[in-house]
């Protein structure tokens, strides 16, 4: 087992948390029963790493086998890297006939044409997602397995999620994806986040669907702890209607856990109390970043508690509506309520 394989294995062992070690190794399935018995999972991680290194030497494993282990771990825990969403555009006629084996062959051959030394591993996960691990090299050096790029693509949808991709390599990956999926172009979907599940759900609307029709008002009897009956009676109707509007804009139930949204504003300053600034020709440039452990939940609470007024038409409801979290707003771009995404099928 050569040096790079050893380093890679050590790195993987550092990243896998202690309680996940046994199930991950079992899933990997490259250890014999005797070897599995010999690993004592109550020892420290460092001791286990040494043990595993010895076993891999025994089995004469190569880098190829170690990368399988890494891929298993990343597929189980995708929430540790920053994921960026891309969208494929302009499908050709035969886009629906692309199926797995064809995609795999095409992708591998196209990418290998574009860059000589590259190591590709493709795996299909249970939920219709195709996972691709790419280790990049160049004309002079072997693929660097310590900095791989992971790509997730759901066949039959135009969405691709990537992590750890430098700008130099992005065009190569884009080209390979476009050619193998029978689309004509690919663009940045302006959506990024740490939790792959969250951005996937947001983009593909796999959470509780928001239909912009009337959301049924919650029953007035829900609130049993009436502290002051008269005040509650007055406020109940207002609260109910706020809650209804909030759910219409953001959805009900569990929302995808997005962490942040960035708006770059380049609009003119308009304030009737300040004549000088309103007459100014240039845009008022600022950047607003919203951050929270669960951003959509916070925004929904803003709407239902009254801090945000008219949630349905504001820029904030564009996040779930358009499935993006990076926006550039200028005076010329149309307002958020006039654009809705075509539902994908």
């Amino acid at each position: 087992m050569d040096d790079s394989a050893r380093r890679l294995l050590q790195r993987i062992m550092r990243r896998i948390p202690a309680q996940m070690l046994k199930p991950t190794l079992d899933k990997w399935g490259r250890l014999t029963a005797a070897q599995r018995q010999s690993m004592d999972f109550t020892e420290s991680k460092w001791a286990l790493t040494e043990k595993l290194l010895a076993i891999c030497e025994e089995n004469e494993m190569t880098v190829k086998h170690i990368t399988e282990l890494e891929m298993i771990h990343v597929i189980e825990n995708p929430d540790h890297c920053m994921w960026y969403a891309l969208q494929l555009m302009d499908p050709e006629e035969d886009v629906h006939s692309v199926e797995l084996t064809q995609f795999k062959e095409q992708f591998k051959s196209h990418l290998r044409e574009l860059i000589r030394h590259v190591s590709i591993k493709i795996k299909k996960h249970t939920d219709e997602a195709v996972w691709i691990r790419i280790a990049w090299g160049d004309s002079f050096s072997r693929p660097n397995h310590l900095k791989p790029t992971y790509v997730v693509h759901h066949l039959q949808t135009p969405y691709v999620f990537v992590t750890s991709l430098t700008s130099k390599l992005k065009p190569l990956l884009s080209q390979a994806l476009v050619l193998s999926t029978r689309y004509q172009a690919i663009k940045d979907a302006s959506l990024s986040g740490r939790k792959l599940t969250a951005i996937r759900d947001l983009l593909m609307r796999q959470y509780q669907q928001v239909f912009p029709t009337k959301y049924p008002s919650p029953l007035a009897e829900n609130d049993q702890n009436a502290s002051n009956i008269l005040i509650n009676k007055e406020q109940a109707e207002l609260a109910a209607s706020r809650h209804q509007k909030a759910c219409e804009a953001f959805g009900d139930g569990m929302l995808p856990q997005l962490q942040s949204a960035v708006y770059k504003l380049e609009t003119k300053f308009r304030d009737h109390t300040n004549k000088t600034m309103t007459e100014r020709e240039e845009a008022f440039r600022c950047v607003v970043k919203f951050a929270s452990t669960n951003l959509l939940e916070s925004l929904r609470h803003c709407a239902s508690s009254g801090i945000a007024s008219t949630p349905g038409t504001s820029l904030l409801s564009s996040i779930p509506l358009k499935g993006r979290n990076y926006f550039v707003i200028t005076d010329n771009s149309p307002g958020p309520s006039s654009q809705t995404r075509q539902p994908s099928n």
Partner: protein
Amino acid sequence: MERLQSSVVRTPPNSTVVQRRSKSYRQSYRSCLGAPSRLGLTPGLTARRLNSSRRALKSHVITVSHTNPSLTIFYVLLNLQRETLNGHVFYPVLFLLKEKVNPEHLALLVKTEWRLSYVTPLHQFRHTQLKRYSRQLSAFIAAEKQQGVAMEVEGSQSGFRVSFSVVQGLAATDDDAETVLIQIYSTPVFARQDEPQKSVWSGWLTCINGNPEYLESLPKGFTCLPLFGGSGAEVLTSLVKSWFQRTFDCCFGPLEINHTSLQWLAALWTNCHTESNLQHLKMIWTLPVVPPLQVTYTVNPQDAWELWMSVRKDRLERTEEEAEAGSIDIEEVVRFVQGLKSHFYRHFRLDLSAGNLNQVSTTLGSAKSSGKIKISNSRYMITTLTLLTECALLKMPI
């Protein structure tokens, strides 16, 4: 109507306060500013208020690169001549002709983020006894260490050396006591013989432009240094504070920077954009929803400055006196921040007033509502410290 309000706050308070002549009673800071609440014209319920108007943040040159003092005076004269040539009679340029601040001290003050506290007046504190205080504090720290107070600070094997020094040149008026700087050094555990000691903790006590009525009302023997800033291990901070409390019979308390002061800092820093590039005006709000939502609002400095100037222009047009031109009123500050909030509201339909302003930062410095301040540019140190001294004096219980 606004003019009348602001002039009410600036009215000398003595006319409405009854002064008792007993020795044990001292005028509290609260009674010094009792006038506004009794006249009932100011909104809000507190009797004590921050100054509603302050001089604009002109850059105070407190260090000169030349060590020759005669060159300092020459530089100042040149500038004064330039001003009269241009015909700007009222351009309020303030150069400190007193001793310039030691550049080492200044470098230390500028590069660190300080945690602030207020301090009640110190009894029998002498600026001449600093060496004695250094020895006493080191002995105190060593004694506490022996008692088993946990010290996670590096170098706890060898002793700590404390150094008290006076930072001359910062005091703005004659009433202000000189700023005192405290530094604690320790030798790292595996140090060579000649390796210099590392500073593990530093702190300072200061009073800049303190309220003169209050300072004069203090009985003899009390020194007022109401603003304390510390940076370093929390253990050492609490040890220094307890030593001060024991030796000088004073009290320390946490000083938060409330949203009015943060708005002041935002406006004062924006005002300096032409002299030193801000690079950005960043404000961080927290909205009280579940889970809490943090909004970071970063404004392009040029646009922020133009908004600020447009707010000032409106007021300057209404002002007749030239002397007013140099000072900034609280209404302008409020209108400036309100303008920023309304631009935000126009886009997001979220009212930022529902949340708390937690932090304001620019390249000139950053201030957090939890009481942390960092002044990154020495030119604006005096005015920022003036604002903070005022906050400390207001928060003090006596």
